[in-house]
Every structure is written in structure tokens, then in C-alpha cells.
């Protein structure tokens, strides 16, 4: 390019790809991208027995008839209180991942501290085709697809049926009507088209949508024609709370057909799983 003063400047044209220059920088960028991808990879770790049965089955898939996923602290607390406390469940695996909100622990063992955000799998001793997954850690949008593919990649698709329980703040619930205090918390359901089960609560109305892990799981089930039903609980409490956990009780009807459940639960057991944060209890009088 000739300038006004007559000097000639070499200017880079954006129309032409310059392969020779900045090769090192590109390499560095690529390397950084690769490192970030590796860091953000989703890993599933199974316990030795399950890893063995995965190897023994020719297709590297587990026999699973029912998968129950709990997303959020209240859903996980409900399962812990009503389903997982009958001593007949084994912890069989966990998912470890890293993102800005979920700095996953470097501990590879399955025994994670209670209360720590995590993603754990449990299997019933008498009925090993029933798997429960409790997910309380945050899974970033770019990791959701990986999570779903890797988890469902380990499970036999035929005969599989999925139930998802998920928490959501009621502030996200859009409705033209005013929600009186007594209506909250409440359940709404969503099903994949392959699901023939009767929903035990009203369906989620438009324009409400699901996001995050529940949406990823339900989308996967819809695409692969797996019968799936989701129960979303809208609650106005931030921390795990026994009243919110009790809202999931209609789901017990389906679960009791699969496994033996605790017949009735005292409020004390529920309170054990509910955390009363000090700040919250002094804020309002």
C-alpha cells in the first residue's frame, strides 16, 4: 500500500490466509484449547464390580431397567431420605468434572464427603437393574452433552426407563396468575413421547422451559426414544428444606413398584437432610 507521503507499507490482507507467520502463536492457542478441553472433560468412575460387569458384557453396557436422576439438593435429599436410607443400596460410581463453579475434587475414591456437591450413582442390591443418580454439583452447558452421552453410553437402551427429579426456584416460574404462598412448593411434569406412564401432577405450562442437566437428559431420551418422565419442583427456599423434599412424594408411587421403600418417615429424619443456614433464619422475624 502506498501512503500519502510516498512510502510503501506492507499491509496484511485478510483475504489471504498467511500460513507462515504466527505459527507459534496458533500452536500455543491450540495447546491452550486442548488443555481447557481436557480439563473440562467429564469422567465417569465406576466401582470395580461394575467396571468388571461392563467389561464382561460384550457391548460395554450395563443392564438397567430404571434410572432415577435427582438434580439439585432438595431432589437429592428426598431420595436420600425416602429411598437410599434402606441399607440396600451400594454406591457404585461417580462423575467427576471441573468447571468454574464446580471445582471437582481430585479424590478418585467413591466415598465423597456428605454435603459436598457431587454426582453419585447408587445401585440396589436386590434389584441391580435399578440405578439412582444424585447430582448436586453444577454442570456447565458445554459439559452437559458429554455427561449425557457418557452416562447413557454405559447403559443398555432397550427396556430402559428414566425418571428425573429436579429443583427450580419459583421465581423462574412464569404464570399470568398470582401464586399464593400456600401453593408453593409445587410439582410440574414433562414426559418424552415414548413415555406411556400417567403423570402424577400437571404438565409444565408454556412458556416455562427446563434448563441444565434435566433438559439434557430429557432431550437425550426424546431423541433416542427412551420413555422418560421428569418432575420439576418449584420452591421458594434456597437451601435444602424438608417441606420441599416432601413435595416429591407423588414420585414414591412409581418408585415403590421398583424397590422396597421406607414405609413412613418421621420429620426428624427429613430434618437431618435439610440444612438450616444461620443467615437465613435471622434475616426474617
Amino acid at each position, binding site marked *: 500500500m502506498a501512503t500519502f507521503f510516498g512510502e510503501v507499507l506492507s499491509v496484511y490482507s485478510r483475504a489471504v490466509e498467511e500460513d507462515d507467520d504466527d505459527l507459534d502463536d496458533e500452536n500455543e492457542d491450540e495447546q491452550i484449547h486442548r488443555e481447557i478441553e481436557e480439563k473440562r472433560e467429564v469422567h465417569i468412575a465406576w466401582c470395580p464390580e461394575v467396571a468388571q460387569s461392563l467389561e464382561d458384557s460384550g457391548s460395554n453396557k450395563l443392564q438397567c431397567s430404571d434410572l432415577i436422576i435427582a438434580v439439585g439438593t432438595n431432589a437429592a435429599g428426598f431420595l436420600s431420605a425416602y429411598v437410599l436410607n434402606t441399607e440396600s443400596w451400594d454406591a457404585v460410581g461417580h462423575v467427576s468434572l471441573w468447571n468454574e463453579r464446580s471445582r471437582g475434587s481430585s479424590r478418585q475414591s467413591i466415598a465423597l464427603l456428605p454435603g459436598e456437591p457431587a454426582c453419585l450413582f447408587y445401585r440396589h442390591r436386590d434389584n441391580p437393574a435399578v440405578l439412582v443418580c444424585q447430582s448436586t454439583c453444577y454442570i456447565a452447558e458445554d459439559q452437559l452433552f458429554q455427561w449425557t452421552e457418557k452416562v447413557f453410553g454405559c447403559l443398555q437402551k432397550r427396556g430402559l426407563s428414566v425418571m428425573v427429579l429436579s429443583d427450580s426456584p419459583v421465581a423462574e416460574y412464569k404464570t399470568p396468575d398470582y401464586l*399464593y*404462598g*400456600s401453593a408453593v412448593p409445587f410439582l410440574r411434569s414433562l414426559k418424552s413421547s415414548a413415555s406411556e406412564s400417567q403423570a402424577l401432577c400437571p404438565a409444565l405450562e408454556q412458556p416455562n422451559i427446563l434448563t441444565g442437566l434435566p433438559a439434557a437428559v430429557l432431550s437425550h431420551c426424546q431423541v433416542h426414544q427412551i420413555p422418560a418422565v421428569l418432575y420439576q419442583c418449584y420452591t421458594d427456599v434456597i437451601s435444602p428444606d424438608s417441606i420441599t423434599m416432601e413435595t416429591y412424594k407423588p414420585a414414591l408411587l412409581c418408585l415403590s413398584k421398583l424397590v422396597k421403600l421406607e414405609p413412613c418417615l418421621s420429620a426428624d429424619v427429613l430434618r437431618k437432610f435439610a440444612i438450616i443456614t*444461620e443467615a437465613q*433464619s*435471622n*434475616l*426474617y*422475624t
Partner: protein
Amino acid sequence: MAARYDRAITVFSPDGHLFQVEYAQEAVKKGSTAVGIRGKDIVVLGVEKKSVAKLQEERTVRKICALDEHVCMAFAGLTADARIVINRARVECQSHRLTVEDPVTVEYITRHIATLKQRYTQSNGRRPFGISALIVGFDYDGTPRLYQTDPSGTYHAWKANAIGRSAKTVREFLEKNYTDEAIATDNEAIKLAIKALLEVVQSGGKNIDLAVIRRNQPLKLLESKEIETLVAEIEKEKEDEAEKKKQKKST
């Protein structure tokens, strides 16, 4: 729809809502229930006691506060906001006494509190107070009064009202049961307040705090023993009623 008009207090939505004020009213519903009853010669304030942490001094967690010798209030909502409002009201009560040489009327101090609250719904950069208050007392001519204020700065006089978590249930109970016979005597008015609270309070009398003002007498906070006695009386009356109904049915 709400999302675009609810971030600033000074913005109306196209359909006339002040969302921040309405959200402040939601904050009130997070506080425990308080009920106020206006009797003939007594005014009663009853509150659901908050569960106190083990190491916390119970005395410092009070929902009922005296504003002057003849006026007191109970609140529901944000604790810190209530403290500010109460302090300003107390100062105003004394300032009034010194300036005008008369104690405040209940309506005056309620109007002062309500004006303060309204100011905070029209200012830039400030949020509304997240409390509703029940203000009770006697004017110097001996009339009992009960007023209720809310975060928007409105106030009204009531014969009986409730605020806080299960206010709707308690108000419905009061609408059915507030009759002239029910408040005929002081004791009956106190029992009506307890009965209203028992509709929504779990585990009975030990979770109830009660305060009364009688004409020409200062505020009195009932001790837990007295409350337990009254609760026992109420339960016995309920049993007697049930017995009578059963006998009527069988004859």
C-alpha cells in the same frame, strides 16, 4: 413481563404495578405470624416465636416492641428493617411528647411510620422497607386502637388482623370468630388471640409470645407459664365442646 420493570423502585410497569413494592410484600410473608386483636378495654398482640439457636440469647429476638408507654407494635419481615423503623418511631414518640406535651395518638405514630415507608417507595436508589407492622395502643381519651401498615406505606385501622407467614389462614379464622361475645372480657380477647395463633403455630403454647395493653396501664408481656395456662384452658374448652356435641348426637 415483570423482568423489565422490576429492577428499579421508581419505575411503573405498563399495567401500573410497582414490582419492588409487591416483592417487598413477599418478604413480609417470610416472617412468622403476628396477630392483633382490639378488645373493649384491652388490646392484644400475639406472635409466633421464632426458634432460637441454642447459644442465642432469647431475650434479643423479640417481635413485639414498645414504642411508648401506651403504644406497642409487632412486625413481620426483615429484622434489620424493623429495627430502623422502630427506632425512628420511638424518637418521634418522644419528640411529640416534648413538643406538644401530649403522648402520641396511635393513629399519629402509625401515620408517621407509614409516611416513612412510603418515602422509601418513591426514592431513587433505595428499596422499600420489607416489614408490615401491627400497631396497638390506647389514645389519651381511652379508645383502644389497632392499625396495620405494609411496605407500600398504606395504613388502615382494624378490629383484628394478622400479618406474616400464614396471615390468610389466621385472618379467615378471625373473620369467623371475632364477635362481640368473643371480646366481651379481657381474658376472652387474649384467648381469641391465642386461638387464632394456634391455627397456624405448631407445637402449641411454648411457641407463642403475647403482649397486652390495658387502659391506663403500661405494656405487659405475658410469661410463658401464663400462656401455657391459657392454652390448657382453651384445649379443655375445646374438649368440652366436643363432648357436648357427641352427647347431643347420641340423644
